[in-house]
């Protein structure tokens, strides 16, 4: 499993302020820090408060690319902002995200095909997030079949089964894990899977413990990526260890450092 660093997001006050002030140092600092700690993609989200999301996205992409070669994950509900970012990304990027709703899928999958982008697909539709695994998988299937029809390679899709906070939706936990497993049965090669890891601990105490425990459980069920705090050392160590235990990396004594250095 790989980590998509979540920190360049306008929801964080320092990032929102940096966007307003055009203070590239703050953004670049976070980009470097996340990369050094093992992030393989960087999520870029202008946040809810940005005055001009398109311009803000372009600026964030530009300043981030000045200091890192990591691919970017363009995170917005405004597809114009994503498209503006895709145009200037130096490496194939990831679109974050699209639900199983026909008009949105059309827009996003044609964009993905055009720019060779990967896509995070949400297992939800107009009716919201289903509870049971079967319905989540059915939505995943719909996303995959539609992407396939648009010519987007299935292994460039990341299905997000949608994780809910464990203090309010405890019963979703096992369903999400089961969904992760079943998504691998959709096709060959199968789509990849992703979760927004910090959702699981939203509003709880022990956030970091819950995050990393869920991360390793999800990995055991086939999780490929998580949008998460790459600067959480305990989380990164747990992920590196789970990769060893799942025989995804070859063991050596310095395996945690190796994982971080990629």
């Amino acid at each position, binding site marked *: 499993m790989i980590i998509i660093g979540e920190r360049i997001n306008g929801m964080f006050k320092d990032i929102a302020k940096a966007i307003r002030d055009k203070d590239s140092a703050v953004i670049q600092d976070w980009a470097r820090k996340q990369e050094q700690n093992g992030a393989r993609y960087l999520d870029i989200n202008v946040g809810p408060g940005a005055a001009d999301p398109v311009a803000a996205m372009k600026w964030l992409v530009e300043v981030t690319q000045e200091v890192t070669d990591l691919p970017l994950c363009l995170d917005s509900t405004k597809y114009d902002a994503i498209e503006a970012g895709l145009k200037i990304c130096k490496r194939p990027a990831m679109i974050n995200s699209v639900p199983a709703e026909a008009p949105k899928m059309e827009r996003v999958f044609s964009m993905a095909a055009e720019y060779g982008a990967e896509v995070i697909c949400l297992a939800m539709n107009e009716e919201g997030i289903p509870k049971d695994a079967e319905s989540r*998988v*059915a939505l995943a299937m719909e996303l995959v*079949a539609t992407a396939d029809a648009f010519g987007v390679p299935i292994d460039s899709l990341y299905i997000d089964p949608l994780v809910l906070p464990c203090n309010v939706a405890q019963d979703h936990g096992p369903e999400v894990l089961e969904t992760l497993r079943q998504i691998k049965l*959709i096709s*060959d090669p199968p789509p990849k899977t992703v979760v927004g890891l910090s959702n699981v601990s939203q509003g709880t105490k022990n956030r970091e413990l819950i995050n990393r425990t869920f991360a390793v459980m999800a990995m055991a069920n086939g999780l490929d990526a998580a949008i998460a705090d790459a600067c959480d050392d305990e989380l990164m160590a747990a992920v590196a260890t789970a990769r060893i235990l799942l025989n995804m990396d070859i063991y050596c004594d310095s395996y945690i450092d190796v994982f971080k250095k990629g």
Partner: protein
Amino acid sequence: MGLTGLEIYKHLPKTNCKECGAPTCLAFAMALASGKASLDACPYVSEEAKAALDSAAAPPIKLVKLGAGEHQLELGDETELFRHDKRFFHPTGVAVLISDTEDAAAKASAFDELEFDRVGLHYVTDVVAVKCDSGDGAKFKAAVEAVAAKTAKAMILLCEDPALLEGALNAVADRKPLLYAATADNYEKMVELAKAKGCPLAVRGKNLDELAELVEKIVALGYKELVLDSGARDTSKVLADLTQIRRLAVRKRFRPFGYPTIAFATKEDPLEEVVQAGVYLSKYASIVVLKAAKKEQLLPLLTWRQNLFTDPQKPIAVEPKLYAVGEVNENSPVYCTTNFSLTYFIVEGEVENSRIPSYILSVDTGGISVLTAYADNKFTGEIIAKAMKDADLDSKVKHRKIVIPGYVAVLKGALEEASGWEVMVGPREASGIPKFAKENFA
């Protein structure tokens, strides 16, 4: 892996009529892929979809049998691309080629003697291939009969004229030889012949595309005891084709390639031919055919086959007993180690390097290495003492000294007590043995 949801979905009517109980065809496809529904629940599914589902349950590569009786060979039924992922199951058949224009009987008798003993194992050259180069049915038949009379091993008959082949085949049909080969030009007749005699049939295309096409035609005629040849003869191309056939069969369940394969070494120089055959043996050929037929040429190839097809999960063992290295006498030093073959052979090599004739006592640890065996209590003072007794060491040497591996120095006390011998602690690594020997026994 069975069929995926998407593949199943492609075979469904996509009407979302809900008669199967699932809300959509998509949901039904997923339920099927995860084994929670049965195809019968959809009344509208096509015959084609049913056939596709059935074949997904079959192994990726069919098991095909060559020959009859005690020399029968099982080919194919492999599941891996790399031996470390699990293991390779059915060792490549090594076939020696005899032409009907040479002295077939003489070469066949020589072939029959190509059996070897090394490190307690018996290696056999298992297949003889007789080729019709003369274009003369009577000559071919005579050659096939001569070979059959000299060896009982499995046979391949190489002749692409079904009429000529039939004559020779009638003489040895009960040996169930592999018929080589069905091509685009002769496949109908060849299939008839193979079916009638119950023999496996090799299929040769001009390339992978034509091969796949031909296999489908032959399967449509109702015959599946097949062995594949992509037609390539250049080393690099054969390697690529054999790799693709194996990969597509195992990873993509591509049915036309779900059969064993045959490859031909083509070099004129027998040494080059062995190396070329080795490449094909390494990378997936189920049978390799070569002309080289001398002992020194086949032994290396058969050894590589034996090594490649061992089970990587299962440590290989040498027979636990007392081995003599060099011209030993009653004063020769005695080393002990486990019967894990790699450990044993390394120790043996270094003892040889020491140039001091010695005994090595290989203790039965179930074929595991020194440290693992020690940790598992399979290499203890008592066990070693018992092995010494079983090997009758007391009568083999006059002295009462035994060398144990440096890693298990802690066993010294226990072994001295159990055996009454003086225990010397050897070097930790076998590479230290020559020096150790020089210092202590020279």
